[in-house]
């Protein structure tokens, strides 16, 4: 017998269940950052927390032993699915070139290196999954990644407990590194800088005083949007709206219509390429935004933004946390990259050089601490490796001379601002502009 009332209740429940399931899907916004870090530095020998995982013998947990004939395994968390698959792939391929180079140069004490690539999907949920996988694998020495900030927030507490150091090539949220995390490092520059420079560009260079700010609710997008908002207000400008959307949204007309009422001179968007392109397109349809400019951030600084936005991209602005790029090294890198993968790295994303340098930083630190024992096995002490990575000084990389600060900011370079002209990015402001 069919009872409509109970069916309705069932239907409502199914919807709820599916919505919850959606939160676990890779395209959903990342989980919030863990505000409280476990006091791991005080208890360095604490085994990995998840009880279901095999815990290694306490005596060996502080040392990775690579048997003769095996490879040194470096984990990689890359956003291969999710909102920015192209940049994620680019970052993985950059890391592979770095591994190839290290192996061609003889590896570490004769031991070759191997990249263990996992899909961090640009989400906190998936970052947690990848983190647990690495923590449960006693052969993982260090990790390069994550690609996105939310993903890295998923990795951070787990790797901190497991005493596995990581270097992110591209996670820019300021909280990726922190004073209480000795395993957290990055080559990319922090959004604390990007948001500030963007605000100065809009206020001083463009001379705008009234802007609206949008974000995609991801840790990265909302983070950089908030920094921009605060910096712009501090400069004396007015932020007329602060509107959110979600990663994966495709219709932004409702929030844009709301923003159109106050007729801002510019819309600043913190988020990734597809959403940025759709906003740039759809704002042309909204009353009050006919003359409004659009500005995005490094998450949208990709070929995919140009492809999706089409003619709507013309005249929009995009900022990027650029390295202090060494042209000669970059051209050698690009030659190898094109030879191996058959595509120019810039067609996929902007962070390939940072990714190369992340791996380089890890490999150089391993070289400093790795010792061969009497049986010919390679021994890498985890605590020593963590200190060696943090102690990196004057390492010549593609993105400049890398020196890690006491909290793990290892990158060199500055923020650049581009505009789109004839379907291509052209730098108009910021670091390295001649």
């Amino acid at each position, binding site marked *: *017998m*069919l*009872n*409509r*009332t109970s*069916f*309705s*209740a069932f*239907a*409502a429940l*199914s*919807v*709820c269940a*599916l*919505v919850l399931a*959606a939160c676990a*899907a890779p*395209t959903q916004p990342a989980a919030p950052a863990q505000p409280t870090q476990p006091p791991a530095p005080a208890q360095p020998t604490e085994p990995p927390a998840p009880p279901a995982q095999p815990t290694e013998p306490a005596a060996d947990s502080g040392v990775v032993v690579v048997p003769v004939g095996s490879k040194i395994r470096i984990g990689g968390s890359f956003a*291969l*699915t*999710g909102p920015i*698959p*192209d940049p994620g792939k680019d970052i993985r391929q950059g890391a592979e070139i770095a591994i190839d180079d290290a192996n061609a140069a003889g590896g570490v004490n004769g031991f070759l290196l191997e990249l263990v690539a996992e899909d961090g999907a640009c989400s906190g949920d998936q970052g947690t999954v990848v983190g647990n996988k690495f923590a449960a694998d006693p052969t993982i020495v260090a990790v390069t990644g994550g690609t996105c900030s939310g993903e890295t927030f998923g990795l951070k507490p787990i790797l901190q407990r497991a005493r596995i150091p990581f270097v992110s090539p591209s996670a820019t949220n300021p909280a990726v590194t922190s004073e209480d995390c000795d395993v957290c490092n990055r080559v990319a520059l922090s959004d604390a800088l990007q948001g500030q420079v963007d605000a100065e560009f809009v206020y001083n260079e463009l001379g705008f005083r009234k802007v609206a700010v949008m974000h995609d*609710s991801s840790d990265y997008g909302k983070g950089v949007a908030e920094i921009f908002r605060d910096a712009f207000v501090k400069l004396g400008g007015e932020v007329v709206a602060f*509107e*959110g*959307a*979600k990663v*994966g949204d*495709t*219709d932004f*007309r*409702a*929030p844009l*219509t*709301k923003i*159109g*009422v106050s007729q801002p001179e510019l819309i600043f968007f913190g988020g990734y390429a*597809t959403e940025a*392109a*759709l906003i740039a*397109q759809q704002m042309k*349809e*909204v*009353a009050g935004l006919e003359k409004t400019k659009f500005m995005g951030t490094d998450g949208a600084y990709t070929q*995919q933004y140009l*492809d*999706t936005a*089409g003619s709507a991209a013309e005249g929009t602005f995009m900022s990027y946390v650029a390295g202090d790029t060494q042209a000669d090294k970059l051209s050698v890198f690009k030659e190898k990259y094109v030879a191996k993968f058959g595509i120019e790295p810039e067609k996929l994303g902007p962070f390939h050089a940072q990714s190369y340098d992340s791996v380089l930083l890890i490999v150089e630190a391993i070289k400093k601490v790795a010792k061969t024992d009497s049986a010919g096995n390679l021994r890498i002490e985890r605590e020593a490796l963590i200190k060696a990575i943090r102690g990196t000084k004057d390492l010549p990389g593609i993105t400049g001379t890398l020196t890690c600060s006491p909290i793990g900011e290892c990158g060199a370079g500055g923020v650049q601002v581009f505009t789109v002209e004839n379907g291509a990015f052209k730098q108009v402001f910021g670091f390295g502009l001649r």
Partner: protein
Amino acid sequence: MVATSQAHRWGTLRRREQALRWTARAVGLLIVAALLARAVSVSISENYPLTFWVSQLVNGLVLGGVYALVALGYTLVYGILLMINFAHGEVMMVGGVAGFFGLQIASSLGWLSGATAALGLLFVLLVGMVVAALTGVTLERVAYRPLRGAPRLVPLISAIGASLFLQYSVLLIFGVRPMSYQRPALIADGVRLGPVFVPYTGLIIFITSLLLMGALVAIVQYTRLGRAMRAVATDKEAAALMGVDVNQVIAFTFLLGSALAGAAGVMLGFHNSVIKFNSGFIPGLKAFTAAVLGGIGNIPGAMVGALVLGIAESIGPSALGIPAEYRDIIAFSVLVLVLIFRPAGLLGEVAVEKRA
């Protein structure tokens, strides 16, 4: 003695159920009143111009039009089979992906400029509809027909499996990168009604959804096949005994619903520019919500539910003064509130107990 205590127990239960229902309604009324008060205070304090509300209404009607095209398929299948085809949103996505390739073919052959532009667009739409229809019919044949005699939850699970299968097939075959529809010049612009701008794509979505709904009602009410559909909906076995080919009617139902979903996928592609493997998930969920909201199994109900949902989503955040990222919460809250007062949905028949 036993009989009277039994009767007494049933009476208590009924009274309890009544009390519960009235409590739910009272709570619902309170929530509605609070929301209305909030909306009034926000609209006074924010002082939005009238054109703002009109623009948001237009946004909502277009969004509702997309939901409607998908919701019609849900409601049609439910009406016949009493089954929720949770893969329906994915059928829409497949239509959108097929339309994308149709668009590439049409533009490389130069059909989208000059005199043939309208025909070229029709071709893209047809490609999307045909591929979606084939997908829907195949799905019915492979995933649902073998389970027709099974308990109701079984085909539901099968549908969720089919949904994941379609999503990840598209992911594996075409990759994660979103496919971007480039609007041809013919529909790139829009109509300007004073300060309110209506993009042509939005206009097309709304009008097409109305036309297709009309056509659907006409088919179901006035054709031979429609009569057969209604007969199967009422009683499959009896219809079969009267000479109706039940399998054929059900396949036709899937064909019809999936073609509509394919049209929705293509139009959504033109309107919002991108389609990718999971583009059907959230619209499918919303369309299902719309179908339940309007009274599932009821064709005009699906349309009304979809428009109500679309308008609530676009106007809701501004009217209630909450951030736009919470619009999904508004959509599902509307569903809960409507179900408190009308458990069978806005246009649904109350407590029809069809099957013994």
